[in-house]
């Protein structure tokens, strides 16, 4: 088995605005099972960061434990990384983000790491609206422990073992929407055309952004009876619409008259252009999204795409009113301004 990938790349590889090729965003050769959906997600993260011309040293990739949480080894080798405790990636990321708000935080987690052992941390992370991208590589099984059903497995879906799951699934998107996340999306590892723009949008969004990605486990859960298999998802996938991300300076020229085109400006001036059918859902409205998700579930569909967008939400730093300078860059002088400053403060409180 190959444990190294050749360093030869396409001699005409295009470069982004920073002069980097996609190779500058790659990681080590994956040791996950051949065909694992997680590898496609890793590659989508590579694509998104390359296309956004992010500086690799200004990204931190965070993870917990699980197949999904191994993936930071396979992308962004030139970025910071923290492989934390099972289900505790949210608190570690919160700490990191408090320390240095200037980095782009990309957290990857699995359905076990998020919906089981990490559920408590996850919910509070959403509530606090930490400015990060949270990608769930959701395959419905615990792959590292030989394929038990996870908390996101649908009722009646069965893995390779052939025993239908008996318990109600947790819908992470519904949960995140109801807890106030301003950017919630669902996608499929086998659809990079959709996933890459979603990751780019999530990176640009100020606040907590969840992307729940159905990512088939080829080893334990890719049989036709599983609702998380390549085949099932391809057959039952419905998109809310398509969208593209337009950097601030660019004009939109092409519009499809049969579609409703909405332009939503993000925090940093980037625009998200939504293209959707007239009768489809209004993703800015929480209530209609939640009912659409329920309706899709009734119809055995997987609703994908950007599910909810609210650019008005306040991130943790906004809520806590922290200073613009990252805390890790504050000097002793900043933190201990001296007795005169203390005196002035005391005076102001009299």
């Amino acid at each position, binding site marked *: 088995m*190959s444990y190294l*990938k050749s360093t030869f*790349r396409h001699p*005409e*590889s295009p470069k982004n605005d920073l002069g980097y090729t996609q190779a500058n965003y790659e990681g080590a050769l994956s040791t996950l099972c051949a065909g694992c959906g997680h*590898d*496609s997600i890793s590659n989508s993260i590579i694509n998104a960061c390359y296309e956004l011309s992010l500086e690799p040293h200004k990204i931190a990739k965070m993870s917990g434990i699980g197949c999904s949480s191994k993936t930071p080894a396979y992308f962004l080798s030139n970025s910071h990384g923290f492989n934390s405790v099972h289900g505790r990636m949210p608190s570690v990321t919160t700490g990191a983000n408090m320390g240095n708000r200037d980095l782009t935080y990309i957290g990857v987690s699995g359905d076990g790491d998020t919906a089981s052992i990490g559920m408590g941390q996850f919910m509070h992370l959403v509530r606090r609206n930490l400015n990060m991208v949270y990608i769930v590589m959701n395959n419905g099984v615990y792959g590292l422990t030989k394929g038990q059903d996870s908390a996101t497995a649908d009722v009646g879906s069965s893995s390779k073992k052939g025993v239908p799951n008996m318990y109600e699934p947790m819908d992470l998107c519904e949960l995140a929407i109801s807890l106030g996340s301003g950017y919630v999306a669902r996608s499929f590892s086998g659809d990079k055309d959709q996933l890459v723009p979603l990751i780019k949008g999530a990176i640009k969004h100020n606040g907590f952004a969840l992307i729940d990605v159905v990512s088939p486990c*080829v080893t334990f859960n890719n049989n036709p009876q599983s609702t998380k298999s*390549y085949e099932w998802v391809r057959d039952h996938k419905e998109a809310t619409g398509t969208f593209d991300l337009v950097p601030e300076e660019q004009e939109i020229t092409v519009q499809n008259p049969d579609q409703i085109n909405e332009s939503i400006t993000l925090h940093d001036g980037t625009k998200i252009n939504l293209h959707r059918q007239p009768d489809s859902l209004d993703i800015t409205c929480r209530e209609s999204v939640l009912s659409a998700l329920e309706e899709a579930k009734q119809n055995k569909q997987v609703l994908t795409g950007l599910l909810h967008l609210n650019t008005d939400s306040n991130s943790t730093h906004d809520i806590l009113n922290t200073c613009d300078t990252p805390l890790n860059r504050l000097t002793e002088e900043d933190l201990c301004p001296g007795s005169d400053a203390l005196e002035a403060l005391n005076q102001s409180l009299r």
Partner: protein
Amino acid sequence: MKPTDIKNPEYFHKVVDCQYACPAHTPVPEYIRLIAEGRYDDAYMINWESNVFPGVLGRVCDRPCEPACRRGRVEDEPVAICRLKRVAADNKTDIKDRLPEIQAKNGKKVALVGAGPASLAVARGLAPLGYDVDLYDEQEVGGGFMRSQIPSFRLPAEVLDEEVNYILDMGITTHFKHYVDSLKSLLEKDYDAIFVGSGAPNGRDLPKLEGRQDGDENIFVGINWLESVAFAHTKSIGKKVLVLGGGNTAMDCCRTARRLGGEDVRIVVRSPQKEMKASPWEIEDAVAEDIPIYENHVPHSFVIENGKLVGMKFEKVRAEYDENGKRSLIPTGEDLVLMECDDVLIAIGQDNAFPWIERDIGLDFGKWDMPVVDEVTFQSTNERVYFGGDAAFGPSNVITAVAHGHQAAISIHKFCQGEDITDRPAPDVNLLSQKMGFHEWTYDNHIDHDKRHLVPHVDKELALANLKLEVEKGFDQELGYEEAMRCLNCDVQTVFTDNLCIECDACTDVCPTQCINFTDNGEEGDLRTRLIAPSNDQEQDLYVSGELKTTRVMVKDENVCLHCGLCAERCPTAAWDMQKFSYSVTKAG
């Protein structure tokens, strides 16, 4: 696009760039792997089957394979294919027992005119089948231009003798020192077929240049002079030598002149240096022996004083190109340049000449007074006469001559057996999975990132002092191994089975050079614009699958595929498999 027909052997053949570019279609990656394994005899025999002269070609081949080598597109330099061939030849043991068995005489008799590579390749094909082969050459030994035009410091006589003798020892009747002066009389003998491999023996001269006649004593036509040196008729040359011409013969002339006493040896070419016809490595070797190149100098006149050549005058020009890229040399108007010299060697090309072929024997001559020869069968308009090598279509190189010889031998054999010679035998083809187990392959799929290794040379002083001392030492076994590891194994093909694919994208994600795409089908021009990586090399094919479940197709740009097998290792359903493609041109015997 329609799904690629991988059942057509030419598709995968083209992916093996080196083998495809080789006129004799030598299975290059196969013998390189054998060299890496230390199986030099096997590597040698693969070569011998294909090109008859591995030891010779491992030194002096024009190497059409190397510019084609995929490695040269992936990084700076191709694999040193030619010099690896020499590693096989240098390290082999006695291989005589592996040469073809000579069958009982079949009662047919053929004559070969000229004992160069083309004729010898024909002999190698026909002698084992039981033909009586008569070989005619005006020289006293076999080898043709390989002996007379290639100096021994590039190709030692022992190496040439060994490989020529493998063939002569097949029971060939040699008629050396026998210049064939009439094809008609040869036809009147009892030969069933005659093969003409007499080369392109006429070196071009500059007969009209002022002073040419008066300076004749010190002005030589390059190939004649080289031949005279090769047979030890010429043993010295003046201190100042001008070599006119920019081809490989010119390089051989100037380097030989350096060894025969030339101290100030110069190459003078009409064109800019970058347009010189000589192989880059031969130019390098000449320059390394302190031979300067004067470009854009057009010969104007020979300068004669007291009836003796003392120099040459040149007109300086500059090259200009029209929009079609056609070059014209425009005089700069500067004064003529005088270069002093004792001798001049003219190496400005060579031509065919068939004064010995009568024009009333049913053998048609066409343009440029060249015989009309079929490009596939090598038959002339006289059904008993075949041509090959430089004699067929003008000056080319050894490997092309061998390829001609193989094909002509097939034609002659079919003709003598009363078969249709236009019905050509199909190549011997095989496609075999290299899977050994879970993610294990029979070939070393690890990509080596070494730069091309340089072939060690003997010290310049030693080399220049000895006409017969081979300049290149060749790779030793260790360097040969290192260089062999640079081969990308392009003959191990990525074979895709569409109905196994689940479109998980694992191959697309892992491919180091982003060759693999899953996209909607379209016409080739359109598809090339939609692939992940730039797809600008139109010579390199797109491998397109049948329609997949999502109605997309798999499109692989063959251009810079590393054949590393990662796509197949990361494929969960074995839709990708690494399969070794072997392609061998069928020979007569």
